[in-house]
């Protein structure tokens, strides 16, 4: 095969989305206390429930965010495993209202593609302004850092 030809290494790689596109994160402030984070998950991809963590910086949360139930699968090694497909929406509430404050929504996640590949754990942040008056605020999409053309 390839080994007998100098420099002609073969490579195989499935067509994969960048993780920010496979697991597209957005957030909006519902009011001066509560933020809603949403992952839009592309077809053929899934997130692990036990790897999903949502938090706000700065700000003490009233309680740990409640993660919705996922689809349960029996895994040979890990036992019961729960995954999300399509979308997952999580609300995160501050202990005290902070009208007009800027908070950073921090989402930690880890997911895989059905073709048989897993992405490394991702940490994404979105800056949001909590409304001064009644909410909700606009939806803010996660924007990856632009590539440096001169690198």
């Amino acid at each position, binding site marked *: *095969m390839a080994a007998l030809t100098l*420099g002609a290494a073969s*490579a195989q790689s499935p067509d994969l989305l960048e993780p920010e596109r496979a697991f597209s994160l957005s957030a909006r402030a519902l009011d001066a206390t509560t933020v809603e984070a949403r992952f839009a998950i592309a077809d053929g991809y899934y997130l692990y429930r036990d790897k999903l963590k949502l938090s706000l910086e700065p700000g003490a949360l009233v309680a740990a965010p409640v993660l919705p139930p996922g689809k349960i699968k029996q895994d040979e090694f890990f036992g019961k495993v729960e995954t999300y497909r399509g979308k997952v929406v999580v609300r995160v509430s501050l202990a005290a209202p902070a009208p007009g404050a800027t908070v950073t929504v921090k989402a930690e996640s880890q997911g895989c593609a059905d073709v048989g590949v897993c992405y490394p754990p991702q940490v994404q942040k979105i800056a949001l302004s909590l409304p001064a008056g009644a909410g909700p605020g606009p939806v803010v999409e996660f924007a990856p850092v632009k590539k440096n053309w001169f690198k």
Partner: protein
Amino acid sequence: MRRRTALVVILVAGIVALSAGIYVGRSDRQPSDGTQREEAAATLLGLTLPDVAGKETPLAQWRGKLLVVNFWATWCAPCREEMPEFVRLQAEFGAKGLQFVGIAVDDADKVRQFAAEIGLNYPALIGGFGAMELSKTLGNRLMALPFTVIVSRDGTIAHTQLGPLKGDQLLAMVGKLI
């Protein structure tokens, strides 16, 4: 603005945009030219990583073997699923010079537990973020798992694979390269 000036501006803008598009396209391409691959292969063979017991293990000891370096993790289900087949091939072709090496981006404890469960008969080394960065220079642009690199006996890269490596495909390559 005069018509001719407007046309010149549009033309120049078009050329700039086109060049920028070509530049971005080129810079987004995977490192695939021969020299970069050679360097990455040399870096891979020059690597020393701890095994599950913490013992520093140099990959250079396997120069001259048909080396199959598999980047994996216990948290990656497709990774775990392909490993029993690697164990079978290691048993069958080990004496002929085939050497699997697993580089786990994981906790040593979890790796040790899984290795015991499947009767792992090849080294399980522990790699951190540095290992994932190295896999990127070998062509793993998204740093996803499993990622497998087959290094020929002469130290050059014969094949890279993102995603599971099917038994029959691997067997065919081993047969030709061994």
